[in-house]
């Protein structure tokens, strides 16, 4: 068991950076290629989480707890954002009967 933990903590910081950037790019791609509002919000969650993981990795490697506190704030922010966003989605769905973002182009000139 001790051996496994040592091996895992030997993972270099570079791998975390690469993994998180790939996850962030997946989130960006999801925002770009989907038209369902809910899935777009889920992609945003994915991006927030990749940044969270990177912050935790940095704080673990630096031995500094401030990063983890910051992740805590990001989580609270994400929870608030999801609640408000989903309420807005429900309102939009009641008005347009669709979750397609193309139905929200009324503000376009």
């Amino acid at each position, binding site marked *: 068991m001790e051996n496994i933990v040592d091996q895992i903590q030997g993972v270099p910081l570079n791998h975390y950076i690469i993994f998180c950037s790939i996850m962030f790019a997946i989130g960006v791609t999801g925002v770009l290629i989907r038209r369902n509002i809910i899935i777009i919000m889920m992609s945003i969650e994915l991006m927030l989480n990749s940044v969270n993981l990177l912050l935790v990795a940095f704080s673990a490697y630096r031995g500094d*707890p401030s990063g983890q506190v910051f992740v805590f704030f990001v989580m609270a*922010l*994400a929870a608030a954002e999801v609640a408000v966003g989903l309420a807005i989605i429900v309102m939009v769905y009641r008005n347009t009967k669709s979750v397609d973002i193309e139905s929200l182009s009324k503000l376009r000139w």
Partner: protein
Amino acid sequence: MTIFTKNPVHSVLYLVITFFTLTIHYILLNAQFLAVVNFIVYMGAIMVLFLFVLMLLNLNKESEPMKSNLVKIIGAIAGMCLIATLLGAFRVLEPSNEMVAAHADIGLVKNLGKVLFNEFLLPFELSSVLLLTAMVGTVLLAKKDVKKA
């Protein structure tokens, strides 16, 4: 997986799997408190909220809006470009790979609480105000139509 499946419910379930692996990452990185918070908040609250809205709106696979293939390909290429740019940037920098101080107890509630309530007391209170505002806003948004109807 989350972004490529057609069915939104499957998409949510794949996202839950992703968050579960992230929780395991937190545990491996000695962030036990954050692992528990991640487990409860993300996999419990947020995912249930997403599933609830999906069920409430009663979407099915046929009505799922999809973009045209051209836009999809352009989006995928843009994502790949982002990955390439980031990786190219990270190749240059060389972070120190060894752990500076291997504190095993850095992620425990005791240490986190000391930092949270000493240095970060003002942001903590502000986040509570933010959550209250979000709650009020959500209730307002959800109630408006009921009164009108």
